[in-house]
């Protein structure tokens, strides 16, 4: 058959138009007839096996869970702004939860769905992190990130420091004692540092504080004593010369962890996988102890039910089933998600020894740590206000004068606070 150019073009265009129409029609009918419960999470945010069993447990829900790659918060916000295809249940990362509080009306108040009855099963401080100042609960606890001190027992032994977790926990319980050990370590082994960098010390001391950078009355408190203390703790280590000044997570950090010049790191339970990833050959040489200055929390996330959810009651049932104490034990085994339910800590799944830590039962450290994390008010604008402190501390590590760095950090934080509409004295 002979086709003229015009006929070919027309046919092509018709085909394209038909496809476009078909796609649009397909989308709309899909949205209208689809009664399935849609759940969004990021890779590693929930245990896929628990989600599969949740689908079987609630056959009517037709649970469809999707792993959303890339910038999760951004994709969630975009979908919210479009008000179409919003999931019925969504994950929210711990560092983002407060930024959703000003728009709490876009979510179902989980208290009105019956969350109060379950409160006693979850860690109090974690529960409170999902509730706005006005008492609206938008986030239900998934996992937490209780901190501990990871250290190389063999390197500590070579330097004449205690190697047993219980002794390390008791002898290095304060920052001062910890820094003293750092001085001994450096004296015994040249070029070996106990403290990684200044920003991480500052972040940890802030995590141990009950006050952050903004208080409940929307007032900037980043220039007050508690922040100054965290700053000067980091400066103490720097002056003692026991800070490696290597940025955490950099290529140099990986190398230092692997070759033993960075024989210790303070981090959340999940940080163990960063260490084992950077130094797989050191398996069995690491231990965990309670970190100096008391427990803190780094990371951990929440599940929320957006207002667009078709059947919020069912969504809530599925959500609470996924996050029950029993299923959190499964999630710990499969996906290393540290449970937010203290009852889980006594289950066999968590009492196993970890070969990376020479068979140590890490729950003995992280369990008590998890239950003692301080409750602190985190403002929706905290992340913006805190950023300059970390950037300036990194600059101090590369040679900036600490006093002028502090002044610059405070003045930048005040600009950020003013722009966010906070009160600045």
């Amino acid at each position, binding site marked *: 058959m002979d086709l003229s150019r*015009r006929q070919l*073009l*027309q046919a092509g*265009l018709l085909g394209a138009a038909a496809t476009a129409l078909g796609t649009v029609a397909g989308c709309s009918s899909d949205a209208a007839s689809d009664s399935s419960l849609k759940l969004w999470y990021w890779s590693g945010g929930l245990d896929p096996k628990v989600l599969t069993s949740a689908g079987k447990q609630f056959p009517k829900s037709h649970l469809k869970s999707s792993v959303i790659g890339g*910038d999760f918060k*951004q994709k969630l*916000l*975009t979908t*919210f*702004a479009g008000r179409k295809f919003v999931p019925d249940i969504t994950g929210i990362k711990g560092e983002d939860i407060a*930024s*959703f509080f*000003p*728009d709490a009306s*876009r979510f179902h108040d989980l208290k009105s769905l019956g969350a109060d009855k379950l409160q006693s099963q979850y860690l109090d401080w974690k529960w409170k992190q999902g509730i706005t100042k006005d008492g609206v609960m938008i986030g239900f606890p998934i996992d937490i990130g209780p901190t501990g001190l990871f250290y190389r027992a063999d390197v500590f032994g070579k330097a004449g420091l205690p190697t047993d977790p219980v002794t390390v926990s008791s002898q290095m319980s304060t920052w001062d004692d910890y820094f003293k050990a750092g001085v001994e370590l450096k004296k015994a082994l040249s070029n070996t540092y106990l403290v990684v960098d200044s*920003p*991480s010390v500052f*972040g940890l001391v802030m995590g141990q504080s009950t006050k952050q950078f903004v208080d409940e009355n929307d007032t900037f408190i980043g220039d007050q004593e508690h922040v100054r203390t965290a700053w000067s703790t980091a400066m103490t280590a720097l002056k003692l010369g026991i800070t490696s*000044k*290597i*940025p*955490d*997570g*950099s*290529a*140099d*950090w990986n*190398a*230092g962890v692997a070759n033993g010049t960075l024989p210790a790191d303070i981090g959340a339970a999940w940080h163990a996988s960063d260490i084992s990833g950077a130094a797989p050959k050191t398996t069995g040489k690491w231990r965990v102890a309670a970190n100096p200055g008391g427990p803190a929390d780094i990371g951990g996330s929440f599940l929320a039910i957006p207002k667009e959810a078709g059947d919020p009651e069912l969504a809530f049932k599925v959500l609470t089933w996924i996050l029950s104490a029993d299923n959190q034990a499964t999630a710990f085994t499969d996906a290393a998600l540290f449970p937010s339910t203290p009852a889980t800590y006594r289950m066999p799944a968590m009492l196993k020894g970890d070969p990376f830590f020479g068979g140590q039962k890490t729950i003995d450290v992280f369990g008590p740590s998890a239950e003692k994390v301080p409750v602190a008010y985190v403002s929706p604008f905290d*992340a*913006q206000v*805190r*950023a*300059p402190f*970390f*950037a*300036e501390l*990194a*600059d101090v*590590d*590369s*040679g*900036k004068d600490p006093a002028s760095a502090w002044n610059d950090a405070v*003045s*930048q934080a005040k*600009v950020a606070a003013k*722009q966010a509409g906070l009160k600045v004295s």
Partner: protein
Amino acid sequence: MIRAAEPTERAAVVTVAPQATRPLPAQARRRSRLRRIAEHWPQYAAISPFFTVFLVFGLAPVIFSLYLAFHEWDGLGSMHYVGLEQFRRLADDPLFWQSLRNTLVIWAMSTVPTLAIALVLASLINSAKRLTSFYRVAVFVPNITSIVAMAILFGALFSTNFGLVNALLHSLGLGRVHWLTSPWGMKVVIASLITWQWTGYNAIIYLAGLQAIPTELYEAAKVDGAGPIRSFFSITVPLLRPVILFTVVVSTVTGMQTFTEPQVLFDAQLPPNMGGSGQGGLTMVLYFYHQTFDNNRYGYGAAIAWSVFLVVIVFVLINWRLLARGERAAGR
């Protein structure tokens, strides 16, 4: 300028039309234009996908971002009109000014070596007798290599304790440099990454320009006793001026929008997307990204984006004036 031209044009139509001897009425002209469009509808339809996609994903967001720059919006709640408040905040924001300074410094540190090396490379390839296509491909490959992968590689090369660059310095008896945490070191790494990526691209453009220069000029110069260096500065550079202008403008536009390099290089350092230690690698577009997507300040982010646009315009105009004036001088 365009606005000034409009009234005179309209006046011309009004005065000329009645006097014209064989006037084609405006209506008829319009109708015939419509008919021509109707006749050629398959062609218009064939080019429409680009324009549709551009309208929806290019132009509409640009216009929306201008609208956003005058509003306060967190992406979820309602928008509030704030007038010029976002721009006023920007003027008072030390970090924005630092990001502007960083961007300009990095741009200068990358553009000058990029264009200089590119010109030298291009003349070398131009005078090569064999393997010319190989050289052309080899020189262009960095431009199409994933910039994210290269940034990670550069991060490893320039790392303080175990990087190759410091190992080299050390073996020469020089001290270690904190490339990734000191303000100048960070800028050097970013600039060298940009230079690595764009030198080949510019070399290919220069090569095209070089091949348009008649060989007679070089032969005449040789007869007059000019060596290769003299003919490079007296023939090649002046005749390449329009091409150099083009590459300077393109380098300005891309250099002012430097983003991926610092974003990937200082990704691990704590405040996310803030350009690392002391914000030494904070560029304008990175700051825009940080405010918009880390802090959910869409209005403020839009204001930064439009300020970047203004800065680009200003610098392109300055470049244009400088080089165009040089050309006029050369022409005289």
